[in-house]
C-alpha cells in the first residue's frame, strides 16, 4: 500500500493517547488524519494496564489538577463514543502507619487548593466503605473523583469513532525513518512512504526511538509493571483501591510493581508472588481467589515523572504526547492537542509540560 497524498496530520501510536488525539482531532472535521502503529491497537502499554482513572494522590497539586480535569471529561466522552465502562467508583489509598497519616493530612490540604476533595479516613471509616479491606490498615485517603475504565473498550471505541470521522489507519506498520523536507514530513514505513504537514508522536515507551528519528531526545524511561489477574469473582469490591480493582466482569486486578528492564515484557515469579502477598495484605479474602494470569506492561515514565505535551521546540510541526497515566489523561490530552493543532493555543497552560523544561538551561528552574 502506498499513499501519495499528503496528510494534514499523522499520529504515530494508537494507544490511549494516540487514538484519543486522532478521535478528538477528527471531531473538528478539518484535517485529513492518519493513525499509524507498528502493531495492532492494544498490543502495547494500553492493553496491559490496570486502567485506573486516578486523581487524588497525584502531586504536586498542579499535576493533580490536570488529572482532575481529565477525569471530569470521561462522562462526556462516554456520551460521544459509547460505553467504555468508565466507573467513578471513588478511590481509596490505604496506609498502614501513623507516620503515613501525617502525609495523608498534608496531601488533603494541598489538593484542596486546586479543588480535589480528599477525606482522610480512620480505619473504621474505611472498613465501613470497603468491608473487605484488611483490618490491619491504619486508615486511608479517599476521593470521590477516582475510578477506572476498560482500556480495551476505550481504545476500540476511540478508533471506531475516529474512523467514522474519516480518520485513516495503518496498523502493523512500523515507521522506519522520518525526514523533514521543507514543511513536509516524510515517514518511511514498512508499507511505504507517508507524507504529512504535522506529526504527532504518541508512541508511549517507544517514543524515544521515534524522537531519535527527528534527532530529538525524548527524556523518558521504560518501567515494567507486572499485574496479577484473578478469574471473574462475584462483585465484592466497590472502590478503586490503590493497587487493586475489580473489573466489570468480576476479575480482580492487582499490582503496583516497577522495574527498569527495557522492553522485556516477561512476568517473573519474584514479582508475581510479592504482588499476591500485597493483594492478601490489602484484601485478605482474596487468598481464596484463583489467579489465572499475570501480565506486564511497559510504562513510559518521563524522567521527572510529569507528562511531556506540546510542540517539539527544534522541529516545527512535530508534536509529542508522552506520559505515564495515559489512561487518566487520555480525554484531556486528546482535547488539548486538538486545540494546539487547530487553534494554535490551548485552554490550559501547557508550559509546565513542554519538552523544553528538560533543556540544560532550564533544569534548575524546574
Amino acid at each position, binding site marked *: 500500500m502506498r499513499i501519495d497524498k499528503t496528510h494534514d496530520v499523522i499520529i504515530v501510536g494508537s494507544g490511549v493517547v494516540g487514538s484519543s488525539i486522532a478521535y478528538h482531532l477528527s471531531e473538528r472535521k478539518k484535517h485529513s488524519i492518519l493513525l499509524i502503529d507498528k502493531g495492532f491497537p492494544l498490543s502495547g502499554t494500553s492493553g496491559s494496564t490496570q486502567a485506573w482513572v486516578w486523581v487524588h494522590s497525584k502531586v504536586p497539586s498542579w499535576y493533580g489538577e490536570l488529572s482532575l480535569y481529565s477525569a471530569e471529561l470521561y462522562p462526556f466522552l462516554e456520551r460521544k463514543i459509547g460505553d467504555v465502562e468508565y466507573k467513578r467508583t471513588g478511590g481509596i489509598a490505604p496506609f498502614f502507619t501513623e507516620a503515613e497519616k501525617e502525609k495523608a493530612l498534608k496531601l488533603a490540604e494541598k489538593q484542596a487548593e486546586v479543588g480535589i476533595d480528599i477525606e482522610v479516613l480512620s480505619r473504621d471509616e474505611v472498613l465501613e466503605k470497603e468491608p473487605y479491606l484488611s483490618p490491619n490498615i491504619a486508615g486511608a485517603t479517599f476521593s470521590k473523583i477516582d475510578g477506572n475504565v476498560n482500556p480495551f473498550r476505550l481504545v476500540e471505541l476511540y478508533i471506531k469513532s475516529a474512523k467514522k470521522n474519516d480518520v485513516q489507519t495503518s496498523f502493523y506498520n512500523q515507521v522506519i525513518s522520518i525526514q523533514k523536507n521543507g514543511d513536509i514530513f516524510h515517514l518511511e514505513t514498512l508499507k511505504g512512504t507517508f507524507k504529512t504537514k504535522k506529526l504527532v508522536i504518541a508512541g508511549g515507551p517507544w517514543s524515544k526511538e521515534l524522537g531519535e528519528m527527528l534527532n530529538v531526545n525524548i527524556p523518558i524511561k521504560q518501567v515494567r509493571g507486572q499485574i496479577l489477574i484473578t478469574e471473574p469473582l462475584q462483585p*465484592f469490591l466497590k472502590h478503586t483501591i490503590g493497587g487493586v480493582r475489580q473489573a466489570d466482569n468480576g476479575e480482580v486486578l492487582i499490582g503496583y510493581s516497577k522495574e527498569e528492564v527495557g522492553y522485556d515484557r516477561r512476568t517473573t515469579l519474584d514479582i508475581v508472588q510479592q504482588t499476591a502477598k500485597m493483594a492478601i495484605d490489602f484484601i485478605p479474602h482474596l487468598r*481464596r*481467589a484463583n489467579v489465572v494470569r499475570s501480565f506486564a506492561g511497559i510504562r513510559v515514565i518521563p524522567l521527572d515523572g510529569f507528562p511531556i505535551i506540546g510542540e517539539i521546540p527544534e522541529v516545527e510541526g512535530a508534536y509529542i504526547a508522552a506520559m505515564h497515566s495515559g489512561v487518566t489523561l487520555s480525554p484531556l490530552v486528546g482535547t488539548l492537542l486538538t486545540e494546539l493543532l487547530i487553534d494554535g493555543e490551548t485552554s490550559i497552560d501547557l508550559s509546565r509540560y513542554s519538552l523544553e523544561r528538560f533543556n540544560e538551561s532550564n533544569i534548575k528552574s524546574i
Partner: protein
Amino acid sequence: MQIKKHPILGEKFTEEITFYFNEKPLKAMKGQTVAAALMRNGIRKFGVSRKLFKARGLYCANGRCTSCYVTINGLDHVLSCSTLVEDGMNVHSNESDPDVGGIYN
C-alpha cells in the same frame, strides 16, 4: 456406572465411601477423583458456564480445560478431575462465579 471388574485391569478399588453432591449422599470408591465419583453415579453435568449458563462437565480430565469446576467443602472452582474424593466430602455444582466474600471465609 462403575466398571465392576475391568477386563484388563481387574478390580482396582476396594473401599467404598460416601460423599455429598448438592447435599445428596452418593457412593464412590476411595482413590477415585471427584469427577469420576460423580460420573459413576450418572451425574455428568457438574455446573454451568459463567456467561450463558450452559451445562458443563468433564472435558479434558487433565486439569487444563477448567470445564469440570465444582465447589468442594465450600471452596469454589476446584478442578474435580484432579481432586480425590473423600469420605464425607461436600461437593456442590458450579453455578456462578466464585464468591470469595461468602460465608465460608
